[in-house]
């Protein structure tokens, strides 16, 4: 039987919209590399939701030992070499390329039929919804505060110092060796936590 392909609006997941918005903002703030990454990933997710990437083979979740070994090597390299250096760039890009196939693998996001979606909403416990709403509200508030500071700081360098973004505030902290080490460790552990959570799901 002939099956109709879903329309673009039907497959536009909220997280894909988040990536598109982030990409657009990165282009606007003059960071085209960052914009390309976000937009490209959003396009890949859209293509996947439209069923165009179903032939991509799934990757097995890596073992914990492998993950920790790679993180340790990456951590040493990131800490031992200067920020904004070529080694840092290579390590971060390599980590991204290694993590992406792992994140991509797993059950693809498929929109539930309306009846099924309603049923699943009823089953969902209230604490889950409360957490989702509260954390989302907090995330949106942080983004709005950051974007507001960015816009108010646009006219001049002095204005940017009066309305600092998180990047401006964190930059001097990360230039101190201890701050650099703490950030690298937290960032890598955060990535590992996300990979492990994915595995548990």
């Amino acid at each position: 039987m002939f099956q109709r392909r879903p329309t673009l609006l039907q497959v536009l997941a909220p997280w894909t919209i988040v990536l598109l918005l982030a990409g657009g903002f990165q282009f606007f703030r003059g960071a085209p590399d960052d914009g390309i990454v976000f937009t490209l990933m959003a396009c890949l997710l859209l293509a996947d939701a439209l069923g165009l990437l179903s032939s991509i083979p799934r990757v097995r979740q890596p073992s914990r030992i492998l993950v920790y070994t790679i993180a340790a090597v990456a951590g040493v390299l990131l800490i031992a070499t200067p920020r904004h250096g070529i080694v840092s760039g290579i390590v971060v890009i390599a980590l991204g390329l290694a993590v992406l196939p792992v994140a991509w693998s797993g059950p693809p996001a498929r929109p539930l039929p309306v009846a099924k979606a309603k049923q699943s909403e009823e089953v969902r416990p209230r604490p889950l919804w409360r957490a989702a709403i509260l954390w989302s509200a907090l995330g949106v508030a942080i983004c709005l505060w950051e974007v507001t500071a960015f816009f108010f700081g646009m006219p001049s360098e002095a204005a940017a110092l009066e309305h600092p973004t998180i990047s401006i505030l964190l930059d001097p902290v990360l230039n101190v060796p201890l701050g650099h080490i703490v950030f690298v460790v937290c960032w890598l552990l955060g990535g590992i936590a996300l990979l492990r959570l994915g595995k548990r799901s």
Partner: protein
Amino acid sequence: MILVITVAGYCVLGGLIVVLALLSRSRPERVIPFGELIDRTIVSRSARVAIIVCWWWLGWHFLFAQTV
């Protein structure tokens, strides 16, 4: 003065993150912990990939790209 307000805003939001994290740990029957929320969220590919991309971008932005 504006600088103080801007930084205070970040501090308040950071404080709210800590409060919400502690609240969800002490009373999971009212608000499930953040880890569990992420665990349930990243079941879908779009959420998983988007969250991983955001995580990766933090490293890219603060460790390699021109931050300021």
